């Protein structure tokens, strides 16, 4: 919260777009600002009405270096924008650094994301220490089409203006904590000796020689990848990681997504009845990759580049009572299956489960 808890007296606010950046089409700028306002109106009783050529509560403008508000901009990068807390005059106004590369996608700085953050200040919020929050001070890109206001920001703004009038109260994503005993994973893959745990729009990254687990946005490394990855595996032979979501898959090579992806999973030989993949791991010794879907699994031959015959088979008949598989990976000859907060260590040679652990056992909690 901002010191003194400033807030607007009325829930019905006006906004005005004072000028535009030449780097974006006007319509795209207006769309980005409108979407940014809706981020806050969806979770509170607040409404925003656009006005022209008259006084407005929130005036949004692009400014250059010293623009006479005692807070000069610093050129490209660095400080991207700032905004003023609720109040008369300059109160509530949003200033965007004209020298930034404003865009409506993942290149440069996404105008929607930055305006949505600054509007948080215009409404009375200050910065959040939650790295996943919209009100976290450092810029990070999220695909606007996938954007969901995080719970931390919802809690903050509703503490000032109250809940939304919607029958069903909106909720938002929570930032995963490595040592949260209730943490479950969307997908897991090894990557050049590290283990990457995918969760919502985050990846938890564990290097065997470091005790600390690093948490990043998936978009930090691969901005074209969606959040909510459902399966992933590393093909060590080709130094590639394949990631799956719904009926599509991408091939990652280092920091790049291989051209021509995503591709339909049916190119791998799945029947059209399969709509998504739950988990996958690849056995570098045999060149076989195992895909887990509901209570069955398929086996793919990486050398022949085709599915083996005789599949799908029942998971329980070959892997024992591990239930549905959320995520899987192979390391040092063992396969680790994750189901909710439980993890099974499986020995593919004896075909036995040799140990059962908590899902977060890799994080030195």
């Amino acid at each position: 919260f901002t010191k003194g808890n400033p807030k607007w007296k009325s829930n019905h606010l006006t906004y005005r777009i004072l000028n535009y950046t030449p780097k974006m089409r006007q319509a795209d700028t207006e769309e980005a600002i409108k979407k940014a306002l809706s981020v806050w109106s969806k979770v509170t009783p607040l409404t925003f009405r656009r006005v022209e050529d008259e006084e407005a509560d929130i005036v949004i403008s692009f400014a250059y270096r010293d623009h006479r508000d005692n807070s000069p901009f610093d050129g490209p990068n660095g400080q991207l924008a700032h905004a003023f807390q609720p109040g008369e005059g300059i109160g509530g106004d949003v200033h965007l650094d004209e020298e930034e590369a404003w865009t409506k996608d993942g290149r440069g700085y996404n105008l929607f994301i930055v305006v949505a953050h600054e509007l948080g200040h215009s409404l009375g919020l200050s910065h959040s220490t939650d790295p996943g929050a919209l009100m976290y001070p450092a810029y990070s890109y999220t695909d606007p089409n996938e954007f969901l206001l995080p719970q931390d920001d919802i809690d903050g703004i509703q503490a000032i203006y109250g809940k939304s009038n919607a029958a069903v109260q909106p909720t938002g994503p929570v930032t995963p904590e490595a040592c949260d005993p209730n943490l479950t994973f969307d997908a897991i893959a090894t990557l050049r000796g590290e283990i990457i745990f995918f969760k919502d729009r985050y990846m938890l990254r564990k290097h065997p020689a470091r005790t600390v687990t690093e948490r990043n946005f998936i978009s930090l490394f691969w901005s074209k990848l969606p959040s909510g990855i459902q399966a992933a595996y590393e093909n060590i032979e080709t130094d590639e990681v394949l990631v799956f979501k719904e009926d599509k898959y991408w091939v990652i090579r280092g920091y790049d997504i291989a051209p021509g992806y995503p591709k339909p999973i049916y190119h791998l030989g799945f029947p059209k009845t399969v709509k998504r993949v739950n988990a996958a791991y690849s056995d570098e010794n045999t060149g076989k990759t195992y895909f887990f879907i509901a209570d069955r699994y398929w086996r793919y031959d990486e050398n022949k580049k085709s599915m083996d015959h005789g599949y799908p088979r029942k998971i329980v008949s070959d892997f024992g009572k591990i239930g549905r598989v959320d995520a899987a990976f192979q390391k040092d000859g063992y396969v680790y299956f994750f189901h909710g907060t439980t993890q099974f260590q499986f020995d593919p040679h004896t075909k036995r489960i040799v140990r059962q652990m908590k899902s977060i056992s890799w994080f030195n909690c």
Partner: protein
Amino acid sequence: FPVAPEAEDEGKTLELVETYLQNFYNLQRDHQPHLRNKGENPLAAKLKEMQAFFGLQVTGKPDLRTLEIMKKPRCGIPDIGEYV
């Protein structure tokens, strides 16, 4: 592991740290680090505040991870104190 910054960058590093803490953590611009003052160096104190805010290891020293965060593009509003 990432390579530590070269010694000759230290001047630049100090400038980056000072500007960042002045902009976002209310470090007074006229502070003079005194080699022998009893209290903690104000810059180190503010650096600790910034490290605590970002969930970094609170060392009071501009380590690599801290510098990495300071170089990230960000909002011009301070993280603490008033912005009027």
